[in-house]
């Protein structure tokens, strides 16, 4: 099949076939006042001029900082083979082609992506992907409502605040209710899901719960008691949704291991650049029993009329163009290129490579914890973490800003995204991955140490000045 634009001859033939003089005549029904006219654009530039201008804009981004920022998007090393293969025309410019007659290659890559994510999550069914982790989590919550025919979902405060916000947006249109499960305030489990409160929330017989959504690791980097959450959820007839980080699944227990019914997560860690927020990759997986309720496209493997292996989009009757208002979702696409990048990344690394990425990140995080504690910024919570954790830093937002001037992106001041958690007002969420170097850790610790000592000095000087003032 030739891929070429229409020529004027093509257009003339088509117009003649339908008996129309010009293309404009086809828009005769639209009032002239509403028709698109000239767009207000700057005058055109040559490729060279435009390149210079865009480079100038791009140079205003800080890409020189030693970054310890995670909070849902992580720095990882992507082998060159991923970006190179993605550039292939068949992959790069094709928009989610699903006709099996001409798209066996693409369909196979989606099937492989689904298979790899099924292995990683330990669940049976994986969709062809969603927009991002937040959207996938919202869809997972909606799935739990449809499957149980209940309207109340409990979402842990340890789930990424952006995901919780997105979930509420999705719930807004329907008559569904999302309530937050609080975190334990103190003690050895501080910062993790409050299981006692969860149990009480599940016990309301008049308001049965459809799903319980908990992230592991949590937004604060802590490992959560997932098996226990699952047990409590199932005892109350609710489904268990696990929000997961894919690289961590190489070393942590998987949703399949701890009895989750649905798993959602962000696939950016799998070979996708940070790109200042996107495009990212929504992972959604579930047990086989829920296959008819999972939104999004599914690619399956079958045989054609000649008995050869073939890949097709399957279970189409779930989708909105067929099921309409009874469909699980309005999504009729996927993040094809991003899912392909993730599949390439996983294939390039293999299970051992992925485990090494996770383990090395964890090791670096341990070094980071020690280095920061040594300069006076200890961890906020006592529980185990993988590669991300919160540290106590007085006046964290101000310190964070000064550290940027010193070339360090010191994670995320938690007060910025969790303003209603007073315990996190003086905290930075920091992380390390396999690309974090010992030099970067040393530079961070030194700079932070300076800032804290300087602040202490300023604090002491301030108290002295206040004392003199009072004495006058």
């Amino acid at each position, binding site marked *: 099949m030739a891929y070429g634009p229409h020529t004027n001859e093509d257009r003339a033939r088509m117009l003649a076939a339908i008996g129309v003089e010009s293309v404009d005549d086809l828009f005769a029904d639209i009032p002239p006042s509403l028709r698109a006219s000239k767009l207000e654009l700057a005058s055109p530039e040559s490729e060279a001029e435009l390149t210079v201008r865009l480079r100038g804009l791009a140079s205003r981004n800080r890409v020189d900082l030693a970054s310890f920022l995670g909070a849902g998007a992580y720095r990882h090393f992507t082998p060159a083979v991923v970006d190179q293969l993605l550039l292939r025309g068949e992959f790069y410019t094709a928009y989610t082609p699903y006709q099996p007659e001409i798209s066996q290659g693409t369909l196979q890559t989606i099937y492989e992506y689904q298979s790899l994510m099924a292995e990683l999550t330990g669940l049976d069914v994986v969709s062809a992907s969603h927009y991002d982790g937040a959207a996938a989590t919202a869809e997972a919550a909606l799935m739990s409502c449809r499957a149980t025919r209940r309207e109340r979902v409990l979402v842990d405060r340890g789930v990424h605040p952006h995901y919780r916000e997105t979930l509420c947006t999705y719930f807004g249109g329907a008559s569904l209710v999302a309530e937050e499960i609080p975190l334990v305030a103190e003690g050895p489990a501080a910062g993790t899901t409050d299981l006692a409160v969860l149990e009480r929330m599940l016990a309301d017989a008049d308001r049965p719960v459809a799903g319980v959504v908990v992230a592991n690791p949590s937004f604060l980097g802590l490992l959560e008691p997932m098996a226990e959450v699952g047990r409590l959820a199932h005892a109350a007839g609710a489904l268990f949704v696990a929000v997961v980080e894919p690289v961590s699944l190489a070393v942590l227990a998987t949703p399949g291991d701890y009895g989750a019914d649905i798993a959602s997560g962000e696939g950016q860690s799998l070979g996708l650049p940070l790109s200042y927020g996107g495009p990212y990759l929504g992972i959604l997986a579930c047990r086989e029993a829920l296959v*008819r309720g999972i939104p999004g496209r599914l690619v399956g493997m079958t045989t054609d009329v000649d008995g050869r292996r073939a890949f097709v989009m399957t279970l*189409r*009757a779930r989708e909105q163009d*067929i*099921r309409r208002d*009874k469909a699980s979702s309005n999504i009729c696409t996927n993040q094809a290129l991003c899912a392909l990048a993730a599949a390439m990344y996983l294939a390039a690394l293999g299970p051992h490579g992925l485990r090494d990425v996770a383990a090395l990140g964890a090791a670096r995080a341990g070094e980071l914890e020690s280095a920061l504690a040594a300069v006076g910024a200890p961890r906020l919570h006592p529980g185990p973490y993988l590669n991300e954790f919160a540290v106590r830093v007085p006046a964290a937002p101000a310190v964070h800003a000064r550290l940027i001037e010193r070339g360090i992106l010191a994670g995320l001041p938690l007060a910025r995204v969790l303003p209603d958690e007073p315990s996190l007002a003086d905290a930075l969420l920091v992380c390390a991955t396999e690309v974090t170097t010992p030099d970067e850790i040393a530079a961070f610790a030194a700079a932070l140490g300076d800032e804290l000592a300087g602040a202490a000095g300023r604090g002491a000087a301030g108290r002295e000045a206040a004392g003199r003032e009072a004495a006058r």
Partner: protein
Amino acid sequence: MVPQDLRYTKEHEWVRLEGEIATIGITDYAAEQLGDIVFVELPDIGRAVSKLAAIGVIESVKAVSDLFAPVGGEVVESNAELAGAPELLNSDPFGKGWMLRIKVADAGQLDGLLDAAAYEALTAEA
């Protein structure tokens, strides 16, 4: 020719009343229109249904169709074979493809249903 001893609805469902129990299925016409049926969702046993309520779903490769209750009452049985063999709706819609049984609350509701001749006239027009 559809079975003469059954009653029919405009939604292409058939009803066989034996005492208080109405056995319900879809006609061969419906099955043919739907195409290869791949999944059937039936109501839970014990569920109270009212006439014309949507009580289940029939899914084919190309379409999804609601199943409506032709009479009101209580669901007392559903065909467990359809879970593993939904194609029975295509191959034997009036026999092994029966879908569910309802204990009828008001037998008078059947009066409004079509007899075989009226149903055949309906499908002939289509």
